[in-house]
């Protein structure tokens, strides 16, 4: 299987620390978050499977124990930003996408 291409979506500086944005990549809505403390970026699907709306990029990020999470702005379930798993309802999960910074650009594989 050939690897999907890296698509540039914005500049790293467009990401306000500790918030998210949403990018459209190959017709998929990808929520991208930047944690200032971890100096790390994360990408998961923007679709909240419980609230059934494209809103995850507008959630608050943080930690629960050792997990890095985003809280859905609709009903506040937490999704693990590394695995996509929903902490409260493990039967739900969201897709996780590879993301990197290349020459000041944020790139996603989706």
């Amino acid at each position: 299987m050939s690897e999907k291409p890296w698509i540039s979506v914005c500049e790293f500086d467009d990401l306000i620390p500790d918030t998210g944005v949403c990018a459209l990549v190959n017709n998929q809505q990808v929520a991208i978050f930047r944690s200032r403390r971890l100096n790390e970026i994360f990408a998961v699907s923007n679709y909240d499977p419980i609230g059934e709306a494209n809103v995850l990029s507008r959630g608050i990020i943080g930690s629960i124990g050792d997990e890095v999470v985003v809280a859905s702005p609709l009903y506040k379930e937490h999704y693990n930003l590394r695995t996509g798993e929903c902490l409260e309802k493990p039967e739900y999960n969201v897709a996780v996408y590879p993301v990197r910074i290349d020459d000041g650009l944020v790139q996603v594989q989706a």
Partner: protein
Amino acid sequence: MKKRIVVVGNGMVGHKFIDNLVNHADADQYKVITFSEEPRLAYDRVQLSKYFSGSTAEDLALTNADYYNEKSVEFILKDKVIDLDFDNKEVITASGRREGYDKLILATGSFPFVPPIPGNNGEHCLVYRTIEDLEAITNSAKQSKVGVVVGGGLLGLEAAAALKAAGLETHVVEFAPRLMAVQLDEGGGKLLRRKIEAIGVKVHTQKATNEIVAGTELRYRMNFADGSHLETDMILFSAGIRPQDELARKCGIQLGERGGIVVDNNCQTNIDNVYAIGECALWNNRIYGLVAPGYQMAKVAVSHITGGSDQFMGADMSTKLKLLGVDVASIGDAHGTTPGSLSYTYSNDVDEVYKRMIVSADNKKLLGAVLVGDVEAYGTLQQMCVNGMDLPEDPNCLILPNVEGGSGMAIGVDALPEAAMICSCYDVSKGAICCSVQNGARTMGDIKALTKASTGCGGCTALTKQVMDSELKKLGVEVSNHICEHFPHSRQELADIVRIKQIKTFDELLDGHGHGLGCDICKPAVGSILAAFWNEYVLDKKHIGLQDTNDIFLGNMQKDGTYSIVPRVAGGEITPDKLIVLGQVAKQYKLYTKITGGQRIDLFGAQLHQLPAIWKVLVEAGFETGHAYGKSLRTVKSCVGSTWCRYGVLDSVGMAITLENRYKGVRAPHKIKFGVSGCTRECAEAQSKDFGVIATETGWSLYVCGNGGMRPRHADLFATGLDDVTLIKYIDRVMMFYIRTGDRLQRTSVWLENMEGGLDYLKKVVIDDKLSICAELEAQMAYNISQYQCEWKTTVENDELQKRFKHFINTDATDSNLAYVVEREQIRPATALERNNTNIQFVELVD
């Protein structure tokens, strides 16, 4: 071979018996078979009324088929046991089934008594006992405007509440001269009546119904013995319960004179191997119409069958309930029937409180009590009564209101013996709660899971928590009020740290006082604290990540991810020109338009990228943000007041606008609402608000800490005869004191209720400046107000700030998941069904 245990009736007590037996150490020696006449396994009858507020049969279930299967309990539903063959030790059912037993348990409960009134069997003449009854009531209520409950006892009033909630004009017809004659004395019954009438339920006492005939205006007409009559569409009989002893009677088991299956201290009947438990059982010539004694009987019967030595020795019949919103409690010998007993009475018509204690002839022991309107003393009095504890030196203090605030008079849970029954629904003693704390329980959730305490009627919740807290303290475990795992502090402590150390950002606070990354609990809470003290632009880069769902884009997120727009309409006053602008904007962007409950206009369905453009138009037209998203001042509801209203005493609209403009944008632990009424008719409903202001001939009256919403609370009168300046001064102080000391998401109502010393203390702080902080509170408020900015104005004036308002960072495309249909000439989100229907034409969205 296993012993066969047949349980007739799978109600609350029958199930309790089974549950105890199958979890007994010797459970494997028994085979349990149970019959129920009802179509379902045991459910929580005590909580039956919750069925009207949305609980389903499933929510009420106490057990289910899986559990019984797992425990090998055989159950047969919808089959009534109609005969017993003692010689062959068999039960016989309506369907002809025969089942042998070694031990037979009768747990047939009771049935509602329907007085033998001619015409009592109409289609809309109903009773209140089973889920099926409730379904019938719901159906009947849909076809009725007026409902009558026959019987003003405990269940009757619960039934009346249900009818009232269903929107019916509700009447209670009682034969006795007062309500709840069994539990309450005359004074208590009188006050209860007054309170219930005040909420619109009509009470008719000393009415004997002679007949029910066809009505002229409504469905039925009830003719009373005194010649009067009442018309109604439906009738609910709740005139008491009778033990269900039909089967026992038929088979010659000994009954009491007025019914009930006679049992001894082992719950055995006069027939060998036959027991009776629950509401069908008569012990010591008494029927116990409450579940807790039934549960004790279940325990005793299991003990007797398995060779134990438990005995039933009677039970405490004390009750504490909320009926139609009125707190009522009855303890022990409420009527003072003990020879020589004395009484203490406190009766206050202004606050509508009635309390009476019955004490022994030597004034040493408490025998009983009646409480109406204020039942705070229940826990203390009930424990004192059942445990035979000595009365304090001055028994008055048990019922007199505490002048010096605080509940100094509570006996304190430490004084209770280990065996004291804390939760009578689940038979949980103080010892059992302490024991589960010793085994690791740390929260009320843990206690509930481990002991079931406080999961029944809920009457013991406060006491259970006190026992838990006291035990935790003894174990040296600090009772945690930490806001979340990231900060070892309460909201109040964080607010102090922020204020005293002049901390301006979340990161600064986390670095110095917390750990981890923060979360969706502490971030918005700290965001609110920072805003409350420094009032900087909330979407400043350093604060943005802290903002909750709604604040982060200055609008309220709707179910599909779009937003609502609520401009401020101070005091509800709006010019025609501004109304037109709202209409134009709504039309241009196809927004759903609705008048809110807060006297302003909400425009729904704006997409993220449209927000700045819409707000630009609104700001240009002179609108400001309404902070409908913020934990901050929402609205100041006004009535029209003296400028137009013929009764108006002062200019309520003017005051409402002044207050709204003064406090707009001020962040707090939770939202804050005001109301200003121009006279005591109170058209602005000010007494249901956090701050209520009512005009009187002598000046403004200020009410504080009211609440609508989930748990309504009337505001308390704080001060009267105020001029404008003093009014504002007091509000400044109370509000800032709340901002400093309130808990996360705690409305002013709960804040006040949790304040040690309560209203009196608050008055001392604010009016008498007991803590010498008033100048500081006022200065803090003045600073905060001086920093006000309309966040939307700031946003639309700065292109950089608007960049975030795009659905996608890398394209101008919009969310393809949105779909709207038209209803009543406006848009609404399509339902899942509509989305999947290819024939439906969705509304074309505005770019």
